[in-house]
Protein backbone atom coordinates (compact mmCIF):
# COMPACT_ATOMS: atom_id res chain seq x y z
CA UNK A 1 0.00 0.00 0.00
CA UNK A 2 2.84 2.37 0.90
CA UNK A 3 4.48 1.69 -2.45
CA UNK A 4 1.28 2.25 -4.39
CA UNK A 5 0.54 5.44 -2.43
CA UNK A 6 4.04 6.75 -3.15
CA UNK A 7 3.69 5.86 -6.83
CA UNK A 8 0.38 7.71 -6.95
CA UNK A 9 1.91 10.73 -5.24
CA UNK A 10 4.64 10.66 -7.90
CA UNK A 11 1.86 10.82 -10.49
CA UNK A 12 0.57 14.00 -8.85
CA UNK A 13 -2.22 12.54 -6.71
CA UNK A 14 -2.81 13.33 -3.06
CA UNK A 15 -3.30 10.15 -1.07
CA UNK A 16 -4.62 9.57 2.43
CA UNK A 17 -3.66 6.32 4.12
CA UNK A 18 -5.92 5.20 6.95
CA UNK A 19 -4.59 2.58 9.30
CA UNK A 20 -7.80 0.80 10.23
CA UNK A 21 -6.11 -2.27 11.63
CA UNK A 22 -5.85 -2.29 15.45
CA UNK A 23 -2.49 -3.99 14.98
CA UNK A 24 -1.17 -0.71 13.50
CA UNK A 25 1.17 -2.34 10.97
CA UNK A 26 0.89 0.52 8.49
CA UNK A 27 1.59 3.13 11.17
CA UNK A 28 4.59 1.15 12.45
CA UNK A 29 5.88 0.87 8.89
CA UNK A 30 5.80 4.60 8.27
CA UNK A 31 6.61 6.09 11.66
CA UNK A 32 9.42 5.53 14.18
CA UNK A 33 8.59 3.12 16.94
CA UNK A 34 9.05 5.70 19.74
CA UNK A 35 6.74 8.16 18.01
CA UNK A 36 4.08 5.48 17.54
CA UNK A 37 4.32 4.58 21.24
CA UNK A 38 3.85 8.24 22.20
CA UNK A 39 0.85 8.58 19.90
CA UNK A 40 -0.74 5.49 21.40
CA UNK A 41 -0.06 6.73 24.95
CA UNK A 42 -1.68 10.08 24.17
CA UNK A 43 -4.53 8.86 21.99
CA UNK A 44 -7.07 9.00 24.85
CA UNK A 45 -6.25 12.64 25.61
CA UNK A 46 -7.42 15.88 24.00
CA UNK A 47 -4.28 16.09 21.86
CA UNK A 48 -4.60 12.58 20.47
CA UNK A 49 -3.81 12.11 16.80
CA UNK A 50 -4.87 8.55 16.07
CA UNK A 51 -8.12 7.35 14.55
CA UNK A 52 -9.25 6.33 18.03
CA UNK A 53 -8.70 9.89 19.28
CA UNK A 54 -11.35 11.06 16.82
CA UNK A 55 -13.74 8.23 17.69
CA UNK A 56 -13.36 8.30 21.48
CA UNK A 57 -15.92 11.00 22.42
CA UNK A 58 -18.57 9.19 20.39
CA UNK A 59 -17.56 5.77 21.64
CA UNK A 60 -17.67 6.99 25.25
CA UNK A 61 -21.10 8.52 24.61
CA UNK A 62 -19.67 11.91 25.56
CA UNK A 63 -20.03 13.86 22.35
CA UNK A 64 -19.36 14.10 18.65
CA UNK A 65 -16.50 12.84 16.55
CA UNK A 66 -13.33 14.92 16.65
CA UNK A 67 -11.63 16.30 13.58
CA UNK A 68 -8.05 15.07 13.38
CA UNK A 69 -5.26 16.28 11.17
CA UNK A 70 -3.42 13.50 9.35
CA UNK A 71 0.38 13.44 9.32
CA UNK A 72 2.01 14.19 5.97
CA UNK A 73 4.51 11.38 5.66
CA UNK A 74 5.94 12.43 2.30
CA UNK A 75 4.82 14.96 -0.25
CA UNK A 76 1.26 14.04 -1.19
CA UNK A 77 1.01 11.06 1.16
CA UNK A 78 -0.90 11.55 4.42
CA UNK A 79 -1.51 9.13 7.26
CA UNK A 80 -4.25 8.74 9.86
CA UNK A 81 -2.48 6.56 12.42
CA UNK A 82 -4.05 3.37 13.71
CA UNK A 83 -4.65 2.53 17.32
CA UNK A 84 -4.90 -0.65 19.32
CA UNK A 85 -8.00 0.79 20.99
CA UNK A 86 -9.82 0.53 17.70
CA UNK A 87 -10.48 -3.05 18.79
CA UNK A 88 -12.75 -1.64 21.54
CA UNK A 89 -14.77 0.16 18.91
CA UNK A 90 -14.90 -3.03 16.86
CA UNK A 91 -16.60 -4.77 19.78
CA UNK A 92 -19.16 -1.93 19.96
CA UNK A 93 -19.79 -2.17 16.22
CA UNK A 94 -21.55 -5.53 16.60
CA UNK A 95 -24.27 -3.87 18.73
CA UNK A 96 -24.20 -0.75 16.55
CA UNK A 97 -25.09 -2.88 13.51
CA UNK A 98 -28.10 -4.32 15.37
CA UNK A 99 -29.13 -0.76 16.31
CA UNK A 100 -29.21 0.12 12.61
CA UNK A 101 -31.82 -2.57 12.07
CA UNK A 102 -33.68 -1.04 15.02
CA UNK A 103 -33.50 2.35 13.26
CA UNK A 104 -31.67 3.91 16.18
CA UNK A 105 -29.75 7.06 15.35
CA UNK A 106 -26.84 5.89 17.49
CA UNK A 107 -26.51 2.85 15.23
CA UNK A 108 -26.27 4.92 12.05
CA UNK A 109 -23.87 7.39 13.65
CA UNK A 110 -21.70 4.54 14.88
CA UNK A 111 -21.50 2.63 11.64
CA UNK A 112 -20.64 5.79 9.69
CA UNK A 113 -18.26 7.22 12.32
CA UNK A 114 -14.99 6.19 10.66
CA UNK A 115 -16.32 7.26 7.30
CA UNK A 116 -17.08 10.75 8.65
CA UNK A 117 -13.66 11.10 10.28
CA UNK A 118 -11.95 10.10 7.05
CA UNK A 119 -14.19 12.30 4.89
CA UNK A 120 -13.34 15.29 7.07
CA UNK A 121 -9.61 14.62 6.85
CA UNK A 122 -9.84 14.06 3.10
CA UNK A 123 -11.76 17.29 2.54
CA UNK A 124 -9.41 19.31 4.77
CA UNK A 125 -6.39 18.11 2.83
CA UNK A 126 -7.79 18.05 -0.69
CA UNK A 127 -7.24 14.31 -1.03
CA UNK A 128 -7.74 12.45 -4.34
CA UNK A 129 -7.56 8.87 -3.10
CA UNK A 130 -8.12 7.32 0.32
CA UNK A 131 -6.64 3.90 1.07
CA UNK A 132 -7.80 1.95 4.12
CA UNK A 133 -5.43 -0.64 5.46
CA UNK A 134 -7.52 -3.32 7.15
CA UNK A 135 -6.71 -6.48 9.05
CA UNK A 136 -7.14 -9.83 7.31
CA UNK A 137 -10.54 -10.72 8.76
CA UNK A 138 -14.26 -10.34 8.12
CA UNK A 139 -15.20 -8.63 11.38
CA UNK A 140 -17.61 -5.73 11.99
CA UNK A 141 -14.87 -3.12 11.63
CA UNK A 142 -13.98 -4.28 8.14
CA UNK A 143 -17.67 -4.47 7.28
CA UNK A 144 -18.15 -0.78 8.15
CA UNK A 145 -15.01 0.13 6.23
CA UNK A 146 -15.70 -1.89 3.11
CA UNK A 147 -19.23 -0.53 2.89
CA UNK A 148 -17.68 2.94 2.98
CA UNK A 149 -15.34 2.24 0.07
CA UNK A 150 -16.08 2.96 -3.57
CA UNK A 151 -13.62 0.24 -4.58
CA UNK A 152 -11.62 -2.52 -2.97
CA UNK A 153 -8.37 -4.20 -3.90
CA UNK A 154 -7.26 -7.56 -2.54
CA UNK A 155 -3.57 -8.23 -1.93
CA UNK A 156 -3.37 -11.95 -2.74
CA UNK A 157 -0.34 -14.03 -1.85
CA UNK A 158 0.30 -17.06 -4.04
CA UNK A 159 -0.87 -19.57 -1.46
CA UNK A 160 -3.78 -21.71 -0.39
CA UNK A 161 -4.96 -19.26 2.27
CA UNK A 162 -5.48 -16.44 -0.19
CA UNK A 163 -7.60 -18.68 -2.40
CA UNK A 164 -9.81 -19.47 0.58
CA UNK A 165 -9.81 -15.84 1.72
CA UNK A 166 -11.15 -14.68 -1.66
CA UNK A 167 -14.07 -17.09 -1.33
CA UNK A 168 -14.83 -15.95 2.22
CA UNK A 169 -14.56 -12.30 1.28
CA UNK A 170 -16.93 -12.72 -1.66
CA UNK A 171 -19.62 -14.33 0.46
CA UNK A 172 -19.24 -11.84 3.32
CA UNK A 173 -19.42 -8.87 0.98
CA UNK A 174 -22.49 -10.30 -0.70
CA UNK A 175 -24.29 -10.55 2.66
CA UNK A 176 -23.05 -7.17 3.91
CA UNK A 177 -24.19 -5.31 0.80
CA UNK A 178 -27.64 -6.89 0.94
CA UNK A 179 -27.98 -6.18 4.66
CA UNK A 180 -26.93 -2.60 4.10
CA UNK A 181 -29.52 -2.21 1.34
CA UNK A 182 -32.18 -3.18 3.86
CA UNK A 183 -30.73 -0.92 6.56
CA UNK A 184 -30.59 2.00 4.11
CA UNK A 185 -34.24 1.57 3.24
CA UNK A 186 -35.16 1.54 6.90
CA UNK A 187 -32.97 4.54 7.72
CA UNK A 188 -34.52 7.76 8.95
CA UNK A 189 -34.53 10.56 6.39
CA UNK A 190 -31.69 13.06 6.06
CA UNK A 191 -29.11 10.90 7.73
CA UNK A 192 -25.59 10.25 6.45
CA UNK A 193 -25.31 6.71 5.11
CA UNK A 194 -22.41 4.65 3.84
CA UNK A 195 -22.40 4.24 0.04
CA UNK A 196 -22.62 0.44 0.52
CA UNK A 197 -21.47 -0.36 -3.02
CA UNK A 198 -17.84 -1.49 -2.91
CA UNK A 199 -16.76 -2.31 -6.46
CA UNK A 200 -14.13 -4.98 -7.02
CA UNK A 201 -11.18 -3.24 -8.64
CA UNK A 202 -8.99 -6.33 -8.69
CA UNK A 203 -6.29 -8.19 -6.84
CA UNK A 204 -2.55 -7.77 -6.63
CA UNK A 205 -0.55 -10.96 -6.86
CA UNK A 206 2.16 -11.19 -4.22
CA UNK A 207 4.70 -13.48 -2.61
CA UNK A 208 5.91 -15.57 -5.50
CA UNK A 209 9.27 -16.33 -7.01
CA UNK A 210 10.41 -15.75 -10.54
CA UNK A 211 12.66 -17.84 -12.72
CA UNK A 212 13.66 -16.90 -16.24
CA UNK A 213 11.21 -13.98 -16.20
CA UNK A 214 8.19 -16.11 -15.30
CA UNK A 215 6.50 -17.13 -12.06
CA UNK A 216 7.89 -20.48 -10.97
CA UNK A 217 5.60 -23.46 -11.55
CA UNK A 218 4.64 -24.04 -7.87
CA UNK A 219 3.46 -20.45 -7.53
CA UNK A 220 2.03 -20.38 -11.04
CA UNK A 221 -0.55 -23.02 -10.07
CA UNK A 222 -1.75 -20.75 -7.25
CA UNK A 223 -1.72 -17.74 -9.57
CA UNK A 224 -4.11 -19.68 -11.82
CA UNK A 225 -6.34 -20.60 -8.88
CA UNK A 226 -6.43 -16.99 -7.71
CA UNK A 227 -7.38 -15.79 -11.18
CA UNK A 228 -10.18 -18.37 -11.26
CA UNK A 229 -11.38 -17.71 -7.71
CA UNK A 230 -11.35 -13.93 -8.08
CA UNK A 231 -13.71 -14.40 -11.00
CA UNK A 232 -15.98 -17.13 -9.62
CA UNK A 233 -16.14 -16.13 -5.96
CA UNK A 234 -15.94 -12.36 -6.11
CA UNK A 235 -16.89 -11.10 -9.57
CA UNK A 236 -19.76 -13.52 -10.18
CA UNK A 237 -21.02 -13.27 -6.59
CA UNK A 238 -21.06 -9.47 -6.58
CA UNK A 239 -22.59 -9.33 -10.03
CA UNK A 240 -25.52 -11.35 -8.68
CA UNK A 241 -26.36 -8.22 -6.66
CA UNK A 242 -25.41 -5.57 -9.19
CA UNK A 243 -23.65 -5.95 -12.53
CA UNK A 244 -21.63 -2.79 -11.86
CA UNK A 245 -19.96 -4.17 -8.73
CA UNK A 246 -17.46 -6.24 -10.70
CA UNK A 247 -16.34 -6.94 -14.23
CA UNK A 248 -17.41 -10.16 -15.93
CA UNK A 249 -13.86 -11.08 -16.77
CA UNK A 250 -10.88 -13.11 -15.63
CA UNK A 251 -8.74 -10.00 -15.98
CA UNK A 252 -8.94 -8.88 -12.38
CA UNK A 253 -5.21 -8.82 -11.74
CA UNK A 254 -4.17 -5.21 -11.20
CA UNK A 255 -0.51 -6.11 -11.10
CA UNK A 256 1.98 -8.43 -9.50
CA UNK A 257 4.56 -7.74 -6.86
CA UNK A 258 7.28 -10.33 -6.73
CA UNK A 259 9.44 -10.97 -3.70
CA UNK A 260 11.75 -7.94 -3.70
CA UNK A 261 14.24 -9.66 -1.41
CA UNK A 262 16.28 -7.29 0.76
CA UNK A 263 14.30 -4.23 -0.34
CA UNK A 264 11.57 -5.38 2.06
CA UNK A 265 13.59 -5.11 5.31
CA UNK A 266 15.31 -1.95 4.05
CA UNK A 267 11.93 -0.38 3.33
CA UNK A 268 10.59 -1.38 6.75
CA UNK A 269 13.60 0.03 8.56
CA UNK A 270 13.57 3.30 6.67
CA UNK A 271 9.79 3.69 6.34
CA UNK A 272 10.21 4.39 2.66
CA UNK A 273 8.77 2.76 -0.45
CA UNK A 274 10.95 0.05 -2.03
CA UNK A 275 12.13 2.33 -4.82
CA UNK A 276 13.22 5.14 -2.49
CA UNK A 277 15.26 3.19 0.05
CA UNK A 278 18.90 3.98 0.62
CA UNK A 279 20.97 0.99 -0.46
CA UNK A 280 19.68 -2.17 -2.05
CA UNK A 281 19.95 -3.43 -5.57
CA UNK A 282 19.44 -0.63 -8.12
CA UNK A 283 17.91 -2.94 -10.76
CA UNK A 284 15.39 -4.25 -8.26
CA UNK A 285 14.54 -0.72 -7.19
CA UNK A 286 13.88 0.20 -10.80
CA UNK A 287 11.74 -2.92 -11.26
CA UNK A 288 9.76 -2.00 -8.14
CA UNK A 289 9.30 1.56 -9.35
CA UNK A 290 8.02 0.37 -12.73
CA UNK A 291 5.68 -2.21 -11.22
CA UNK A 292 4.14 0.08 -8.63
CA UNK A 293 3.80 2.92 -11.11
CA UNK A 294 1.96 0.58 -13.43
CA UNK A 295 -0.39 -0.52 -10.61
CA UNK A 296 -0.99 3.11 -9.61
CA UNK A 297 -1.78 4.05 -13.21
CA UNK A 298 -4.15 1.08 -13.47
CA UNK A 299 -6.01 2.20 -10.36
CA UNK A 300 -6.28 5.77 -11.58
CA UNK A 301 -7.47 4.69 -15.02
CA UNK A 302 -10.04 2.21 -13.74
CA UNK A 303 -11.51 4.57 -11.17
CA UNK A 304 -11.65 7.45 -13.63
CA UNK A 305 -13.22 5.24 -16.29
CA UNK A 306 -15.85 4.21 -13.77
CA UNK A 307 -16.57 7.81 -12.83
CA UNK A 308 -16.84 8.73 -16.48
CA UNK A 309 -19.24 5.89 -17.12
CA UNK A 310 -21.48 6.84 -14.23
Amino acid sequence: MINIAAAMANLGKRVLLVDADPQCNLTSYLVDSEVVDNWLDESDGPNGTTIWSALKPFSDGMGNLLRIQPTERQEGVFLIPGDIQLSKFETDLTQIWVECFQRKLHGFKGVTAISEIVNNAATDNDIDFVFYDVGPNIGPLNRAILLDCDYFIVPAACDLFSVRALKTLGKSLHDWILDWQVISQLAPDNIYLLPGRPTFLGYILQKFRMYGGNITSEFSAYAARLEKTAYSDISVVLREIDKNLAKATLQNKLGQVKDFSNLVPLSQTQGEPFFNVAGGNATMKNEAKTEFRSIAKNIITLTQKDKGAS
Partner: protein
Amino acid sequence: MADENVEVLMTIVTALKGLNPEVQRRTIQAVVTFLGIQLEPSPKEASNSQIQSPTNELSNRKELTFSKNRDMSPKEFLREKAPQRDIERVACLAYYLTHYRDVPHFKTIDISTLNTEAAQPKFSNTAVAVDNSAKAGFLVPAGKGMKQISAAGEAFIQALPDREAAKASQSTTRIKKRPKKATSRIVKSNSK
Protein backbone atom coordinates in the same frame (compact mmCIF):
# COMPACT_ATOMS: atom_id res chain seq x y z
CA MET B 1 -54.48 -14.21 23.20
CA ALA B 2 -52.47 -14.59 26.41
CA ASP B 3 -52.34 -11.70 28.83
CA GLU B 4 -48.65 -10.97 28.25
CA ASN B 5 -49.25 -10.80 24.49
CA VAL B 6 -52.00 -8.25 25.01
CA GLU B 7 -49.66 -6.27 27.23
CA VAL B 8 -46.92 -6.26 24.56
CA LEU B 9 -49.44 -5.32 21.91
CA MET B 10 -50.70 -2.41 23.98
CA THR B 11 -47.14 -1.21 24.56
CA ILE B 12 -46.38 -1.34 20.83
CA VAL B 13 -49.61 0.39 19.88
CA THR B 14 -49.04 3.10 22.47
CA ALA B 15 -45.49 3.66 21.30
CA LEU B 16 -46.50 3.83 17.64
CA LYS B 17 -49.59 5.95 18.14
CA GLY B 18 -47.73 9.23 18.26
CA LEU B 19 -45.83 8.61 15.02
CA ASN B 20 -47.02 9.44 11.53
CA PRO B 21 -48.26 6.52 9.38
CA GLU B 22 -45.10 6.35 7.24
CA VAL B 23 -42.83 6.17 10.28
CA GLN B 24 -45.18 3.62 11.85
CA ARG B 25 -44.91 1.43 8.76
CA ARG B 26 -41.12 1.64 8.61
CA THR B 27 -40.76 0.98 12.31
CA ILE B 28 -42.87 -2.16 12.07
CA GLN B 29 -40.85 -3.25 9.05
CA ALA B 30 -37.63 -2.71 11.02
CA VAL B 31 -38.94 -4.82 13.92
CA VAL B 32 -40.00 -7.59 11.55
CA THR B 33 -36.61 -7.47 9.82
CA PHE B 34 -34.70 -7.41 13.09
CA LEU B 35 -36.58 -10.37 14.52
CA GLY B 36 -36.40 -12.26 11.20
CA ILE B 37 -40.18 -12.75 11.07
CA GLN B 38 -41.61 -13.87 7.74
CA LEU B 39 -45.01 -12.31 7.21
CA GLU B 40 -47.70 -13.82 5.03
CA PRO B 41 -48.31 -11.37 2.20
CA SER B 42 -51.81 -9.94 2.01
CA PRO B 43 -53.74 -10.90 -1.16
CA LYS B 44 -53.15 -7.37 -2.50
CA GLU B 45 -49.39 -7.61 -1.88
CA ALA B 46 -49.20 -11.08 -3.35
CA SER B 47 -50.83 -9.89 -6.56
CA ASN B 48 -48.51 -6.93 -6.83
CA SER B 49 -45.13 -8.61 -6.98
CA GLN B 50 -43.47 -5.48 -8.36
CA ILE B 51 -43.46 -3.80 -4.97
CA GLN B 52 -40.87 -5.32 -2.71
CA SER B 53 -40.53 -4.37 0.90
CA PRO B 54 -37.14 -4.69 2.58
CA THR B 55 -38.57 -7.53 4.64
CA ASN B 56 -39.50 -9.42 1.51
CA GLU B 57 -36.08 -8.77 0.06
CA LEU B 58 -34.49 -10.31 3.12
CA SER B 59 -36.72 -13.34 3.13
CA ASN B 60 -36.30 -13.75 -0.64
CA ARG B 61 -32.53 -13.50 -0.42
CA LYS B 62 -30.85 -16.47 -1.96
CA GLU B 63 -28.30 -17.82 0.45
CA LEU B 64 -24.91 -18.04 -1.16
CA THR B 65 -23.42 -21.51 -1.14
CA PHE B 66 -19.69 -22.07 -1.12
CA SER B 67 -19.96 -25.34 -2.98
CA LYS B 68 -21.81 -23.92 -6.00
CA ASN B 69 -19.68 -24.00 -9.11
CA ARG B 70 -19.45 -20.51 -10.57
CA ASP B 71 -16.45 -21.21 -12.76
CA MET B 72 -16.17 -19.88 -16.24
CA SER B 73 -17.29 -22.30 -18.95
CA PRO B 74 -14.67 -23.39 -21.53
CA LYS B 75 -16.49 -21.33 -24.14
CA GLU B 76 -16.29 -18.17 -22.01
CA PHE B 77 -12.71 -18.96 -21.09
CA LEU B 78 -11.63 -19.12 -24.72
CA ARG B 79 -13.54 -15.97 -25.53
CA GLU B 80 -11.79 -14.28 -22.62
CA LYS B 81 -8.29 -15.42 -23.56
CA ALA B 82 -8.81 -14.91 -27.29
CA PRO B 83 -6.15 -17.27 -28.70
CA GLN B 84 -5.19 -16.36 -32.25
CA ARG B 85 -3.55 -19.53 -33.48
CA ASP B 86 -4.29 -23.24 -33.15
CA ILE B 87 -1.25 -23.83 -30.95
CA GLU B 88 -2.49 -21.12 -28.57
CA ARG B 89 -6.00 -22.59 -28.56
CA VAL B 90 -4.56 -25.99 -27.66
CA ALA B 91 -2.59 -24.37 -24.83
CA CYS B 92 -5.75 -22.60 -23.61
CA LEU B 93 -7.66 -25.88 -23.60
CA ALA B 94 -4.78 -27.57 -21.79
CA TYR B 95 -4.76 -24.77 -19.21
CA TYR B 96 -8.50 -25.13 -18.73
CA LEU B 97 -8.22 -28.90 -18.28
CA THR B 98 -5.46 -28.42 -15.71
CA HIS B 99 -6.93 -25.65 -13.60
CA TYR B 100 -10.68 -25.91 -14.10
CA ARG B 101 -11.13 -29.66 -14.51
CA ASP B 102 -8.22 -30.89 -12.40
CA VAL B 103 -6.87 -32.93 -15.32
CA PRO B 104 -3.19 -32.04 -15.43
CA HIS B 105 -2.29 -34.94 -17.75
CA PHE B 106 -4.34 -35.45 -20.87
CA LYS B 107 -4.43 -37.04 -24.29
CA THR B 108 -5.22 -35.51 -27.64
CA ILE B 109 -8.79 -36.80 -27.42
CA ASP B 110 -9.32 -34.75 -24.21
CA ILE B 111 -8.29 -31.59 -26.03
CA SER B 112 -10.54 -32.46 -28.94
CA THR B 113 -13.54 -33.15 -26.65
CA LEU B 114 -13.04 -29.92 -24.71
CA ASN B 115 -12.67 -28.00 -27.97
CA THR B 116 -16.09 -29.29 -29.03
CA GLU B 117 -17.57 -28.41 -25.62
CA ALA B 118 -16.15 -24.92 -26.00
CA ALA B 119 -17.97 -24.63 -29.33
CA GLN B 120 -14.78 -23.84 -31.19
CA PRO B 121 -14.09 -24.60 -34.84
CA LYS B 122 -12.70 -28.08 -35.33
CA PHE B 123 -8.97 -28.51 -35.64
CA SER B 124 -8.15 -29.78 -39.10
CA ASN B 125 -5.88 -32.29 -37.39
CA THR B 126 -5.92 -32.22 -33.58
CA ALA B 127 -2.88 -34.46 -33.22
CA VAL B 128 -0.83 -32.11 -35.38
CA ALA B 129 -2.12 -29.05 -33.48
CA VAL B 130 -1.16 -30.66 -30.16
CA ASP B 131 2.21 -31.64 -31.55
CA ASN B 132 2.81 -28.09 -32.82
CA SER B 133 1.81 -26.67 -29.46
CA ALA B 134 4.37 -28.97 -27.84
CA LYS B 135 7.00 -27.84 -30.35
CA ALA B 136 6.20 -24.23 -29.46
CA GLY B 137 6.95 -25.08 -25.84
CA PHE B 138 3.39 -24.79 -24.51
CA LEU B 139 3.04 -28.51 -23.78
CA VAL B 140 5.48 -31.08 -22.48
CA PRO B 141 5.29 -34.89 -22.21
CA ALA B 142 3.74 -36.33 -19.05
CA GLY B 143 4.53 -39.99 -19.72
CA LYS B 144 2.43 -42.83 -21.12
CA GLY B 145 1.66 -40.80 -24.22
CA MET B 146 0.06 -38.05 -22.16
CA LYS B 147 0.83 -34.34 -22.31
CA GLN B 148 0.74 -31.55 -19.74
CA ILE B 149 0.92 -27.78 -19.95
CA SER B 150 4.43 -26.41 -19.45
CA ALA B 151 5.40 -23.56 -17.12
CA ALA B 152 5.97 -21.41 -20.22
CA GLY B 153 2.54 -22.36 -21.53
CA GLU B 154 0.94 -21.40 -18.21
CA ALA B 155 2.72 -18.05 -18.18
CA PHE B 156 1.61 -17.40 -21.75
CA ILE B 157 -2.05 -18.22 -21.08
CA GLN B 158 -2.10 -16.27 -17.81
CA ALA B 159 -0.88 -13.21 -19.68
CA LEU B 160 -3.52 -13.48 -22.41
CA PRO B 161 -5.43 -11.63 -23.79
CA ASP B 162 -2.66 -9.03 -23.33
CA ARG B 163 -0.60 -10.14 -26.32
CA GLU B 164 2.35 -7.94 -25.47
CA ALA B 165 2.60 -9.40 -21.99
CA ALA B 166 2.12 -12.88 -23.41
CA LYS B 167 4.87 -12.28 -25.95
CA ALA B 168 7.14 -10.94 -23.21
CA SER B 169 6.56 -14.07 -21.16
CA GLN B 170 7.64 -16.13 -24.17
CA SER B 171 10.73 -14.09 -24.87
CA THR B 172 12.17 -15.02 -21.49
CA THR B 173 11.38 -18.69 -21.90
CA ARG B 174 14.04 -20.85 -23.36
CA ILE B 175 12.40 -23.15 -25.86
CA LYS B 176 14.53 -25.96 -27.06
CA LYS B 177 14.62 -25.89 -30.80
CA ARG B 178 15.59 -28.82 -32.90
CA PRO B 179 18.65 -28.07 -34.94
CA LYS B 180 17.79 -27.66 -38.58
CA LYS B 181 19.19 -30.20 -40.94
CA ALA B 182 22.28 -28.92 -42.56
CA THR B 183 21.58 -28.36 -46.21
CA SER B 184 24.47 -29.10 -48.44
CA ARG B 185 25.32 -26.32 -50.77
CA ILE B 186 26.56 -27.23 -54.12
CA VAL B 187 28.47 -24.50 -55.65
CA LYS B 188 29.04 -24.95 -59.25
CA SER B 189 31.95 -23.29 -60.56
CA ASN B 190 31.92 -22.41 -64.18
CA SER B 191 35.48 -21.52 -64.17
CA LYS B 192 37.53 -24.05 -65.83
